[in-house]
C-alpha cells in the first residue's frame, strides 16, 4: 500500500487508427478531490473506462489503489465506486430496493448490508424517501441515491462522471459539500466536470485535450503557469458602458493579445505595448466610456482557454 490512489504511466487507448487517449500520466494521492477536465470527446470518459477496467489498455500501465488494472480488473472493481452522469438507478425499484440490490451485487452479508444501508440513508438524508420508487425522486435526490448505491461497499476511491450535469444549483452545492466531507475521511474522488467553479474547488486538476494531458496541478499552480501568463504581459478587467462593441474594438487594438467578455466587463491579456489611455480615446470616439480598469489574475477558465488555443495552433502547425 502506498499513498497513491491512482497512477498511470503513458496510459494509451486506441480505437483502430484513432487514438482516444495518448500517453497520459496522472498521479492522484489518497484523499484528493481530483478534477478531470476537458472538452466533450477529448477522452475523459475513456480514461475512466480504462481505470475501472471496462476497456483494456492499448499501451502503458495503470494502478488503482495499488492494483494493476491490466492484471486484475475484477479486484479493481471491488475497491472502487463509480457513478455515471445518468444516475444508473432502477426507476421501478424503491430507494430501499435499489440499495439492497447494489449491496448484494457487492456481496455484502445480510447484517453488514443492513448496517451499511442505514449508514448511507443517514449520510444522504434519504430516510423520508425509503419506500419511494427511484423514478419518482427529483434529480438531486436521485443523484444522492446513486452516490449512496456506489458507496455501499465502502470504496476508498470514487469515480464520478459528470455528477452534476443537469441538477439544480442547490443540489450541486450540497453534493460538493458532501464530497469534501467524505474526502476529509480519506476517500479519493476522481471527478469529471464542465463547471469551472467546481474545478476551482478541486485540490488537484488536470486538463485533457484531444487525447493528450496538457495541464496537471493545483488550481493555483495552473493559474500561475508561464504559458498562461507570458512574461511581460498582464491581465486587465476593463469595465465599459457597452460591452459587446467594446470587446470588438478592444480585440483589434494594438497590444491586446486576447480578450473576452465576462459579465459587464472585458477581460484582456495585454503586453507591454498596450496603452490604456489610447484605448480609452479609441472607445470614446465610438461613444463608449471606460468606467474602471483593474489588474486581474488568471482564472481556471482563462487557463483552459489559453491552453486550448495554444494546442490548437500546434495541431494546425503540425498538419501544415
Amino acid at each position, binding site marked *: 500500500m502506498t499513498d497513491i490512489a491512482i497512477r498511470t504511466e503513458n496510459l494509451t487507448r486506441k480505437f483502430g487508427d484513432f487514438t482516444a487517449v495518448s500517453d497520459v500520466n496522472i498521479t492522484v494521492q489518497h484523499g484528493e478531490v481530483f478534477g478531470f477536465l476537458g472538452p466533450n470527446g477529448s477522452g475523459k470518459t475513456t480514461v475512466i473506462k480504462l481505470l475501472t477496467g471496462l476497456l483494456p489498455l492499448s499501451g502503458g500501465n495503470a494502478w488503482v489503489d495499488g492494483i494493476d488494472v491490466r492484471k486484475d480488473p475484477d479486484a479493481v472493481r471491488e475497491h472502487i465506486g463509480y457513478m*455515471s452522469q*445518468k444516475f444508473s438507478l432502477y426507476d421501478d425499484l424503491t430507494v430501499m430496493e435499489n440499495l439492497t440490490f447494489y449491496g448484494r451485487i457487492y456481496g455484502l452479508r445480510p447484517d453488514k448490508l443492513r448496517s451499511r444501508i442505514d449508514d448511507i440513508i443517514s449520510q444522504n438524508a434519504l430516510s423520508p424517501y425509503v419506500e419511494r420508487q427511484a423514478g419518482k425522486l427529483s434529480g438531486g435526490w436521485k443523484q444522492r441515491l446513486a452516490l449512496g448505491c456506489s458507496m455501499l461497499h465502502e470504496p476508498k476511491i470514487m469515480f464520478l462522471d459528470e455528477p452534476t450535469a443537469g441538477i439544480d444549483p442547490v443540489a450541486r452545492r450540497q453534493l460538493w459539500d458532501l464530497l469534501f466531507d467524505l474526502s476529509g475521511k480519506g476517500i479519493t474522488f476522481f471527478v469529471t466536470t464542465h463547471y469551472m467553479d467546481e474545478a476551482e474547488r478541486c485540490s488537484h486538476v488536470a486538463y485533457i485535450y484531444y487525447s493528450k494531458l496538457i495541464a496537471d496541478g493545483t488550481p493555483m499552480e495552473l493559474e500561475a503557469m508561464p504559458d498562461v501568463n507570458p512574461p511581460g504581459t498582464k491581465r486587465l478587467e476593463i469595465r465599459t458602458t457597452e460591452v459587446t462593441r467594446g470587446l470588438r474594438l478592444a480585440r483589434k487594438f494594438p497590444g491586446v493579445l486576447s480578450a473576452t467578455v465576462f459579465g459587464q466587463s472585458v477581460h484582456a491579456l495585454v503586453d507591454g505595448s498596450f496603452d490604456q489611455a489610447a484605448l480609452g480615446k479609441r472607445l470614446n470616439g465610438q461613444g463608449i466610456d471606460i468606467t474602471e480598469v483593474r489588474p486581474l489574475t488568471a482564472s481556471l477558465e482563462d487557463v483552459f482557454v489559453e491552453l486550448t488555443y495554444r494546442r490548437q495552433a500546434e495541431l494546425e502547425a503540425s498538419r501544415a
Partner: protein
Amino acid sequence: MRNPFQGIGAVIYKEVIHIQRDSTAIVFALMIPILQMTILGFGIDTNIRQIKTVIMDNDNKKLSRELVDRLRNTDTYNVAKYVYSDREMNEAIIGGKARVGIKIPWDYSDRLLKGETAQVMVLIDGSDSSVAGQAINVTTAIGLDESLKRVLTTGQTLPVEVRPKVLFNPDSRSPNFFLPGLTAVLLLSVTTFLTAFAIVKEKEKGTLEQLFVTPVQPMGLLLGKILPYFAIGFTELCIILLALVNIFRVPIHGSVILLLLLSMPYLFVSLSFGTLISTRARSQAEAMQMAFLTFLPSIFFSGYIFPRETMPLPFYIISMFVPATYFINITRGIILRGAGLRHLWFDGMMLTIMGALLFFAAARRFQKKVIAS
C-alpha cells in the same frame, strides 16, 4: 478464484421485482397464449365440410335424385341451388356463389338401366386446393361405390376391402392438430420477446454500464437476468397444458413430466435467441423487429402449418435447423400419440444440442458486445 456466478442472486432479486411491477409483461406472457389458443382452438376448422354446391339435374328421375341425395348426405356438400343451364352453373362458380357444380346428363337413368356407362360431370373451383381435393375425393368415392353396387350381384363380396382407421385423432379435430404445435410457437415467442426486452431496456437506461463497474461476473449477470424468464416460460407452458386439457378438450396421451422435461432445452433456445437479439438491438423497437424475424422460420419451416415431408429439399434442410421442428415433434408425439422417450430421444437430443450451442453463443456475444463496448 472468483465465483463465476457472482451477483446472480442480486440480479434475480431485482428482476423479479421488475416483473412484479411491470404488469404488461405478465399480461403479455399469459394473455397472448390464451388468446391465440382460443382463435386457433375454436375459430379454425381445417376439416372441409358443407362446400357450396350447385346442381344441374337434366335427368330428374328417381336414380338421378338418389345420386343427389347421396352427395348431400356426405356433409361435404351443401346444395345451394339447382340450376337449369350451363351458363347459370358457370356464373355461380365464377361469382364465388358455389365451389362445386354437378351436372347430371338427361340420359343418366336410361343408360344405367340399359347397363351402359353413365357420366356425371363435376366442376370444381381449384382456387382453394384443399377444398378442391376434398371435393374430388368424395365425388370419386361415391361414384365408385355406386358402380360397385351395380356390378356386384347380391351375395358377392369385394375381393379387396380397405378399412382406414385414423389413430390418435379419430375425429380429425382441428384443435388436436393445431394446439400442440401452437404450444411450441407461443413458448418461443413470449420468452424470446421478454428476454430481449429485459436486457435492451437496461441498455437503453444505462444501468447495464453501471453493473459492469461492479464485481458482478458476466455469467452471474446473464443467468440472473434470464432465469426469471425461464420460470415465466415454464409457468406459461403449464397454463397452456391446463387450458389444452380442460378448455379445448385435447387429451394428453403421454407423460406430462416428460413433456415438461423436454421443454427445458427448448426454453434455453428461446432465452438464447432473446439474448442474441439483445446484443444487437439498440432499442426495444429494434428488438421487436428482430424477434419477429426469428419467428418466421419457426412458423413456416417447423411443420407447424405445412407438413415438412412435402417441402422442397432446400426448405427441408432449413427445417432441420429450426428448433421448433423438434419441439413440435415432441408436443405432438407426447400429447397426441402418447410417445415416450424411446420414440423422442432424437428430438430431445437435437434440442439439447441446439440449446447448449445457442446459449454458449449468446453468453459469448453478450460478454463481447455488451460488456466490452
